[in-house]
């Protein structure tokens, strides 16, 4: 509380810009240790707006106006709040506090370490076991006579950004593993990400080799041989370097680079051309800016969308996934994926490939498992990328945003193939940034262990699972052909759309039942109740005890999506009054 000078300011005016509402509400602003809270004066609604400090990405202070001083709060989930405070001094206090509170300097300041849902110790410990990666490897048939568990990284000895439990080719001896790790950036040697039981081909991941212009490493070459040998159906492997070739070449000057095809036998090198985190950061900023523009014309919008390059990047990532999935299924060839450090683009490419390859990862639980494996366990630097602490802004980049968006783009093409809806993806997105749960804290498994996060915070996944009813896609049907096997998306540019649900919050702020999906969910729920009622009726013997059935369904009044016909907000098609 030391940072809060003025905990309460009255007669504050708030405009939730992202909700599209042009209505300003007046109320009281409170600052707590964790949240900014705004309570509307209107005695009928007393609507509360809560903004977690860790969700605030910037606090701007535009010049004061005659009626007061302004603050603009931009949030990591793309909401924007405009606050008008009557007294200059109050505004200055709130500004100073928020700037400090929104940039915690130590993990101990984070919300997840004070967030205490009403669960006991056992339940919390249980919550961390909800996602079991070993069970998933088992599900895909690993270990087996091709892929085995290695103890090389126990206690994070070889690679401190890898998980301790890893799978490597059976023929890769500890010497090969350790030798290979010395020849790879940050010691991230080739390991298994996904094993495809039908073709016995595998998706493996690592970081770039420390080859420079001519360096080589026998163990690393043997390691790649071992990866190839672990796939009896093929006599070569693909090495997918997800970077643009020029970037990869430039890395050679720094003693890094990519595999020399003369040194490695039986590899086919493929560059994909996903740009680096700096390009992605500024690209996302550009589409946010486009959305921010007032009275946006169609030309501004399309031009802005094009010049942001965002959809081009999304397409590149999806194309990488498609390439890997095709290699594994159509050709039966194993793929080794890397970028520079192997924790950003590699995580994107591997996880998109898994979503395409395996229907399990298109279920609610499956997506959790996938994120836990290819992102959390494999040392994607969540705290750096999503600015959990005040740190180097150059480390920040929307890497997992892009993965979630790829999944969303796929769900638009295959509406019945995903068990979850858009809301689920957005909830994950929010929590990646919010640090309300310990799941995404830190930058590696080792850091999380050292922080004893399992004892001090809660896991997100069980909570999302508990709420799964609201995250379920009513159209999902495991039996449909589009839900089964490999997804083969069309990646022609016109198949990509801007993800309005994430970047424009209007939809979220409007009452539920506005989409066909919600309507269908309501119908399905009603059907379930009817089924139960039918079963009950049928159980009653004629003339038996009377059952007084209350009407469970009979089409609830509010189940029509368009019932609230006047969408709150957005650029409605009439003259604006501001």
């Amino acid at each position, binding site marked *: 509380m030391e940072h809060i000078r003025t905990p309460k300011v009255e007669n504050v005016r708030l405009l939730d810009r992202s909700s599209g509402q042009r209505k300003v509400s007046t109320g009281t602003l409170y600052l707590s240790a964790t949240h900014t809270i705004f309570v509307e004066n209107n005695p009928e609604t007393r609507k509360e707006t809560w903004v977690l400090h860790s969700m605030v990405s910037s606090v701007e202070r535009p010049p004061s106006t005659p009626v007061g001083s302004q603050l603009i709060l931009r949030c990591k989930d793309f909401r924007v709040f405009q606050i008008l405070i009557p007294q200059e001094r109050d505004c200055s206090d709130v500004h100073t506090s928020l700037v400090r509170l929104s940039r915690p300097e130590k993990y101990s300041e984070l919300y997840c370490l004070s967030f205490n849902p009403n669960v006991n110790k056992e339940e919390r410990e249980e919550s961390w076991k909800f996602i079991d990666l070993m069970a998933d490897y088992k599900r895909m048939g690993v270990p087996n006579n091709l892929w085995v568990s290695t103890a090389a990284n126990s206690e994070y000895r070889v690679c401190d950004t890898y998980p301790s439990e890893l799978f490597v080719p059976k023929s890769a001896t500890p010497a090969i593993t350790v030798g290979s790790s010395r020849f790879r950036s940050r010691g991230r040697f080739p390991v298994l990400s996904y094993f495809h039981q039908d073709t016995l081909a595998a998706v493996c991941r690592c970081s770039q080799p420390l080859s420079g212009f001519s360096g080589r490493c026998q163990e690393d070459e043997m390691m790649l041989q071992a990866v190839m040998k672990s796939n009896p159906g093929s006599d070569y492997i693909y090495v997918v370097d997800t970077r643009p070739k020029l970037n990869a070449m430039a890395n050679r000057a720094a003693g890094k680079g990519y595999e020399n095809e003369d040194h490695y036998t039986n590899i086919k090198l493929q560059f994909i051309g996903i740009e680096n985190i700096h390009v992605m950061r500024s690209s996302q900023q550009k589409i946010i800016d486009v959305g921010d523009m007032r009275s946006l*014309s169609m030309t501004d919008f399309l031009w802005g969308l094009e010049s942001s390059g965002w959809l081009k990047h999304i397409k590149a990532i999806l194309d990488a996934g498609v390439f890997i999935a095709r290699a594994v299924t159509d050709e039966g060839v194993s793929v080794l994926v890397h970028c520079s450090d192997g924790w950003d683009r590699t995580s994107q490419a591997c996880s998109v490939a898994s979503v395409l390859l395996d229907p399990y990862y298109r279920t609610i639980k499956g997506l959790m498992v996938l994120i836990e494996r290819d992102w959390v366990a494999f040392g994607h630097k969540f705290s750096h990328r999503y600015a959990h602490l005040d740190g180097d802004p150059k480390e920040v980049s929307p890497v997992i945003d892009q993965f979630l968006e790829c999944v969303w783009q796929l769900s638009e093409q295959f509406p019945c*193939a995903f068990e979850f809806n858009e809301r689920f993806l957005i909830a994950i997105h929010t929590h990646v940034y919010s640090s309300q749960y310990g799941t995404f804290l830190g930058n590696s498994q080792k850091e999380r262990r050292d922080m004893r996060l399992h004892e001090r915070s809660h896991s997100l996944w069980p909570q999302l699972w508990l709420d799964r009813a609201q995250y379920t896609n009513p159209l999902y049907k495991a039996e*449909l052909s589009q839900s089964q096997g490999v997804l083969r998306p069309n990646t022609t540019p*016109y198949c990509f759309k801007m993800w309005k649900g994430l970047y*424009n919050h209007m939809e979220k702020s409007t009452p539920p039942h506005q989409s066909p999906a919600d309507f269908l969910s309501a119908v399905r729920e009603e059907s379930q109740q009817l089924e139960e009622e039918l079963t009950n009726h049928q159980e009653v013997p004629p003339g038996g005890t009377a059952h007084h059935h209350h009407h469970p369904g009979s089409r609830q009044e509010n189940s*029509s999506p*368009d019932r609230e*016909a006047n969408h709150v907000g957005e650029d409605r098609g*009439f003259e604006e009054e501001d």
Partner: protein
Amino acid sequence: MEFAELIKTPRVDGVVLHRPFMPTVEGTLCLTGHHLILSSRQDNTEELWLLHSNIDSIEKRFVGSLGSIIVKCKDLRVIQLDIPGMEECLNIASSVEALSTLDSVSLMYPFFYRPMFEVIEDGWHSFLPEDTFKDLESMTDEWRLSEVNKDFSVCPSYPPLVAVPKDIDDNTLRKVATFRHGGRFPVLSYYHKKNGMVMMRAGQPLTGTNGRRCKEDEKLINVTLRLGKRGYIIDTRTISVAQHAKARGGGFETEANYPQWRRIHKAIERFNVLQESLIKLVEACNDQSHNMDRWLSKLEASSWQTHVKEILTTACLAAQCIDREGASVLVHGTEGTDSTLQVTSLAQIILDPACRTIRGFQGLVEREWLQAGHPFQQRCAQSAYSNSKPRQEAPVFLLFLDCVWQILRQFPCSFEFTESFLVLLFEHAYASQFATFLGNSAAERAKLSLTEKTVSLWSWVNRPQELERLTNPLYEPNSLVIWPSVAPQSLLLWEGVFLRWNRSSKWLDDAYEEMVHIIEYNKELQNKVNSLRRQLAQLETDDPLLQTP
């Protein structure tokens, strides 16, 4: 004239047909007066029956003695026919070219078409102005049905019956007609039951450079306002375009002469600008080699989405004036037959739930497009692939349908029909066995005696099996005004038309079926439960012991 003269080669064997998402078929190609037919002579293989009038352009290609004809259709489909033999190929190409560009309306297929279905309701009589007027009469007595145009002499593009203010007599109307472009004096387009406000439409006033005025026109327009109320004149042209129109005898209402009215200018494009836009858009959609940057820049350069946004914005403005401001509205552009109709018809979709039903929408198309004199035959003579210089062609109606699709997508449960109905109307507006969209006005259609000689599209649509196909399973009548978002992020490319032949819709079709299944299953359960509840209630009344728990 005999079609036979135009058909140089009536049939060719061994022709191979390529079309999107279907296996190639080899068969015999036949040309008839109105169709290009490919028959494989095998059972179960689909044949191609293509109306010549659906053909927008054809291209010939030769590799050795094998010729190919690329047929580009007005519904935007592109098919290829490989024809063995140079001469046959040339003959077929030139015959098709001749048959697809026949000038005479009376040679069009609707005059030869005999329905193979039972006509339950003759569509030619489904939407008579006198019937529509009965609904109006039940709401207000301020309007009357005038027969001033019964012989089409006052306004050649108006129907014989129009709704006008009760206090304005036919002589006044005749005078007003001389002051309005094309004789299109202001008529009633829509009456907003909720507050009694109205929407009227007209042609531009012929003020010319010296500011001519017409007392009768001023009187007519003013009499539609209630005491102390103001109105809005929505001119669909920018102020500078409207200024320029003065030089050619046109113009706009000077506010000094219409003091109770405020004029608002909007910018809806016309004619060749729209046609160009369509051509560019379809070109962009058909080129799969584009990278993302190129695709987005081509989409932008086509300006199609900009037109959609402009039209919808103007329609929302009209609706807002009526519903929110409680003001009456007069809409016009230049002729009052294109952008004007886009605005008045879309405003009605926003305001009036009745227009969102299948029948209501037909009525709207009938009233606000066909009887209102949108020159369909001129506008839809060519589509996106036409090589010839556009004359009067413009995708005005297609843009309207696109705007309806945008609203439908934003309010997926408020329309009784699905996207298929809009696609169907697009197809039939450009090429059809039905005569509904033939001719340019009610006068032309009367002259052609369509009612006696041809079949109406509505006769076909309004049969149970067709209606079922077009019905939206999500529909729940919504009596409210629906305000669409016109933010650029909310307006999407209409894939169902523009990407229809470029990408498979299989997965989306599956999803649609699944949706229908969920709803059907729910209905089935409700029926079962209701019948059980009735039985139970019956038992309870039969057995008094059961009544007290």
